[in-house]
């Protein structure tokens, strides 16, 4: 079923886009990641112009996280205070990121920087998460003795002043810690065109030491607001938000997110983290190959 996209200026198979949204939504509901890091590259592979892909994927991630946030909220899995601080940091970060983006774009190396940052971030997060979750699984199966109790949170974050209590996260830390993390995610959101959940989830677990029950919900909460802001930024600056494309993606992803959220409660969190780490590592390898292998098109064209 072919449908013409008025902003992307081309026609696509509507069913393929809905299914793509569905698959990404499933992951997003299960793992608490927005899925933008999958949607954007997949849309580009399908032939959608990169700016339109990034801009429209952002609004798809908003939709997928809304249903996730509602689902987790009812379960008490959203720390609104923590989420609010992360969003505040995210807004500041996206403003800084927009400047950086413009600078890199004028030099013509934005694609390279995106690729390298992806490989480094994904490779690092994926391997840390995989090692940790495999360790937990081994302990649970009785093959290995439980390791000595670890520090609750990273010493740098523990040393920050103005400590306050985040009840649902089970933390007593400085709000500067999530603010800094939110700021970093904000930069990445603009730079990579993703919600940042795949970085935020491990950051909350391993840097802040948050209670696992609140991690996914709070991450979705932050993703919801940051992607909504990103959509507005794109709509007013690049004018690349294709509402028809976003609608198709949304149809699939909101349904997928519901199924994913239900599946997510049935699976043990360490298995979820292992699954996410495998997806993340595979993607890192794929992007690395893209940088190293001779590209199919040596020349690229952009409107000037």
């Amino acid at each position: 079923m072919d449908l013409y996209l008025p902003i992307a200026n081309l026609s696509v198979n509507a069913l393929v886009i809905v299914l793509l949204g569905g698959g990404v939504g499933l992951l997003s509901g299960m793992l608490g990641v927005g899925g933008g890091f999958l949607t954007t590259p997949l849309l580009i592979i399908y032939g959608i112009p990169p700016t339109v892909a990034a801009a429209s994927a952002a609004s798809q991630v908003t939709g997928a996280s809304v249903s996730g946030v509602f689902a987790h909220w009812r379960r008490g899995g959203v720390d609104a205070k923590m989420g609010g601080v992360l969003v505040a940091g995210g807004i500041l970060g996206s403003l800084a990121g927009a400047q950086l983006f413009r600078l890199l774009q004028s030099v013509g190396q934005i694609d390279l920087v995106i690729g390298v940052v992806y490989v480094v971030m994904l490779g690092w997060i994926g391997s840390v998460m995989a090692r940790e979750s495999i360790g937990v699984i081994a302990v649970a199966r009785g093959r290995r003795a439980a390791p000595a109790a670890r520090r609750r949170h990273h010493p740098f974050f523990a040393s920050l002043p103005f400590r306050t209590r985040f009840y649902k996260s089970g933390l007593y830390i400085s709000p500067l810690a999530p603010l800094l993390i939110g700021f970093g995610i904000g930069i990445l959101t603009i730079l990579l065109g993703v919600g940042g959940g795949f970085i935020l989830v491990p950051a909350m677990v391993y840097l802040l030491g948050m209670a696992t029950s609140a991690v996914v919900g709070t991450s979705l909460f932050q993703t919801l607001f940051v992607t909504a802001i990103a959509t507005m930024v794109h709509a007013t600056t690049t004018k690349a938000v294709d509402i028809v494309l976003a609608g198709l993606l949304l149809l699939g992803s909101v349904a997928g997110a519901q199924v994913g959220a239900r599946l997510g409660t049935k699976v043990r969190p360490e298995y979820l983290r292992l699954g996410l780490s495998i997806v993340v590592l595979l993607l890192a390898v794929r992007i690395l190959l893209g940088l190293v292998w001779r590209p199919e098109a040596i020349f690229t064209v952009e409107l000037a």
Partner: protein
Amino acid sequence: MRRRGAIAALLAAPLLLGQAKPVLVPDVSQREVEIAYSFTGAELLLFGAILYPGGRLPQGEAPTDVVVVVKGPTESILVREKEKVAGIWVNAERLRYRSAPSFYALASSRPIARLVDERTRAIYELGVDSLQLSPASSAPADVQGRFQDGLVDLRRRAGLYHEAPHAVEITDGVLYRARVSIPARVPVGRFTAETFLIRDGHVLAAAVRDIDIRKSGFERFVARAADRHAILYGLVAVALSVLLGWAAGWIARRI
């Protein structure tokens, strides 16, 4: 418009010389192409008649050929070339073009290289290799050639630049017709369909018709809203995603 002036001058040239040369009467199946939700590209039929002086087919002369060229609106583009640096492919050299056609399709009754020489091809921009792309920055000729080949190859693979020898049918030496398909991913704007009558390596006659490609109905409404009411459009996009997400959650709780 400079080119159209040149074509007009060439059209007039035979008349000035006082020689009776054939005249082209071209037409296009559609003067306007409307893009709606189901648009997957358009197929244009370019047809017409060759009027010979005295209404008689010339006898014993070289065969007459017809070439049809459809061009999209020109764009200012920046082409970048990747190079391997320290094991990674990075953008290195770049070249800016002031006016590259966004779409170029050529249909001819015989392969264009057999009809006219290289100089004539360059004058009339006949063939994807003869496009006058006018680079904005000065670069050595070999670099320009490399970039032009790269650009043409890229657009050819995207179906935006296309050559179809033998695609023009000429019936009884008088009526001609050709089909040119325009893919869905062309930009909107004014397209031109140029028809050339060629004999003995010379362009005897040429004619131009305009074709407007534009969005209609809902598609035009969306494109306009995104452009003119950006903030409202963005808010609608966010509201749509929140609403759909919330609705899915509401439905899922009741199943």
